């Protein structure tokens, strides 16, 4: 189809408009990265920072020599890996039975699970439960309470439902039980959706910060998001800003904060371009019923 002049003008305007939105979306990350490499005076300059001008690596040195940053990185990596793997297993164990039409009382089980998406005990009862389960100051508090994200689990269930029954019937004739069918037939067919939901779970674990605040007081168990908050949001981290030693770090406050932010997002930025397509695949769910 040929474009008319009016259409061409429209395309150009649209292009420029979307381009502007892209710049707005991405500029803050460029800005903060530039600031993290800037000397105090340059970091405090009013205006745009498209690239670092007066390069100064002090903030990064200060950040990377903090022991607790590495403790946080270790704990966050651990919870992300363990949490994602266990989440996927638990979701599959829930999604597969719920996707099989012959499961007795299937709609009842589905209902009691879906209900939890719309009604929950709330913050305080959850806190008291965690306390009663002796999960305070315990690594597993990062994993167990959020083990099954119900919405993701239902996406997985909906995907399993689209796999034709004939696929598993031949295996059944060969004497395979449901457990075998799930592992050797259903899961291999579901790789795209597993990749998407696994990535979601990984990002959720990487970004989680609230559990480290309310359930954990032990510094050795804190996550990177917790330390990031201490530095960036509350400015409570006395050590990194040199308040204890009385060093000249205070003037580096802005660039130290910027460096900490970049430090916490770099892992996501590294994997994002390669895994981008998986983030989006298999996200489509119409409704919860079925």
């Amino acid at each position, binding site marked *: 189809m040929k*474009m008319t002049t009016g*259409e061409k003008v429209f*395309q150009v305007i*649209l*292009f420029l408009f979307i*381009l502007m*939105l*892209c710049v*707005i979306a991405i*500029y*803050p*990350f460029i*800005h903060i990265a530039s600031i993290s490499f800037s000397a105090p005076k340059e970091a405090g*300059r*009013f205006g745009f*920072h498209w690239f670092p001008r007066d390069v100064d690596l002090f903030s990064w040195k200060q950040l990377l020599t903090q022991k607790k940053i590495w403790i946080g990185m270790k704990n966050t990596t651990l919870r992300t890996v363990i949490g994602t793997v266990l989440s996927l297993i*638990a979701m599959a*164990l*829930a999604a597969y*039975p719920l996707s099989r039409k*012959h*499961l*007795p009382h299937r709609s009842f089980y589905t209902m009691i699970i*879906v209900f*939890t998406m719309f*009604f*929950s*005990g*709330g*913050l*305080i*009862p*959850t*806190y008291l*439960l965690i306390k009663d389960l002796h999960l305070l100051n315990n690594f597993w508090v990062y994993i167990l309470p959020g083990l*099954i994200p119900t919405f993701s689990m239902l996406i997985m269930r909906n995907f399993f439902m689209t796999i034709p029954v004939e696929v598993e019937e031949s295996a059944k004739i060969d004497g395979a039980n*449901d*457990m075998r069918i*799930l592992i050797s037939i259903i899961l291999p067919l579901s790789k795209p959706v597993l990749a998407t939901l696994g990535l979601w779970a990984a990002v959720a674990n*990487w*970004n*989680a*910060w*609230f559990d480290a605040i*309310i359930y954990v007081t032990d510094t050795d168990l804190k996550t990177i*998001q917790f330390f*990031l908050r201490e530095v*960036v949001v509350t400015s409570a981290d006395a050590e990194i800003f040199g308040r204890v030693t009385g060093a000249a770090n205070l003037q580096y406050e802005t660039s130290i904060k*910027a460096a*900490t*932010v970049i430090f*916490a*997002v770099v892992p996501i930025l590294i994997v994002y371009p390669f895994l*981008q397509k998986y*983030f*989006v695949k298999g*996200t*489509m769910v119409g*409704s919860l*019923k079925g």
Partner: protein
Amino acid sequence: MEKAHAVTFESANIPAKQTKIRRTWREYKKSKYLLLMLLPVLVWYAIFCYGPMYGILIAFKDYSPVLGTWDSPWNHFAYFDYLFNQSPEFPRILRNTVIISGLNILFGFPAPIILALLLNELRISLFKKIAQSISYLPHFFSWVVLSGIVFLMLSPSTGPVNYVLGWFGIDPIYFLGDTRYFRFSLVVTNIWKEVGWGTIVYLAALSSIDQTLYEAARMDGANRWKQTWHVTLPSMLPIISIMFILSLGGILNAGFDQIYNLYSPAVFEVGDVIDTYVYRQGIVNFQMGLTTAVGLFKNVVGITLVLGTNYIVKKMGQEGVL
């Protein structure tokens, strides 16, 4: 057919109830592996989702950590009475929550729909792909990260936003510290984070529209705008209505992660919402019973809204979520 006969024959001799139990038992035995998989899942839901629901009891009790949930004495509706009739803070947090959520729905709900429609009109497909990738990016960062960025961007002394405003002769604005601008800043930063990611559902709906509908519309002389109005939007209505139900159901979720990381006592007047109040009073100040009552109120309103809008949307002939 034969099977059905057998069942009727059986039930002629044995009481109906017993056959039913027997049939269920047979079905359960047949699906024993499925049930074996489901069992740990149900245990998890019982502990981590239904367990806290039991804890809601303390909304009606004078909770004492020593006595525990069950043995603490009842005080019936004392907390609710206090909240609705005496508390100076409850009306404020309720108002703030509804206003912030309302603004988020008013501006944040249509934003991804509009962006999806615009992206869909874009003819340069490579640029479209790049634009999508870039627009998804902020969605993947936590509000802790983003608030660090937002602080810098909106800073009155060094932030580029106030720098640009300066070009137009506008004096620096304390976006996060001024009660007049705080809610506005929340809405805008929330759109910045989520608008790109929000387009995914709508773009998928757009790509599944039957192309012959557009051809037919063009035959009838419809221009681009009319095609959008008469073909595109009606085709997107089901998904729009589903997303709308979900967002209305969350009207008392004003966005804890965002607000808790961006607010300060200077803007409590306009920015303190139910969830931030529950956290401060419940965990920090140990008013557990009172804040559980607030949480219960929030949950009941939420589920009522979901069921209510779901019912209305279905009545209007659209598909609901449930």
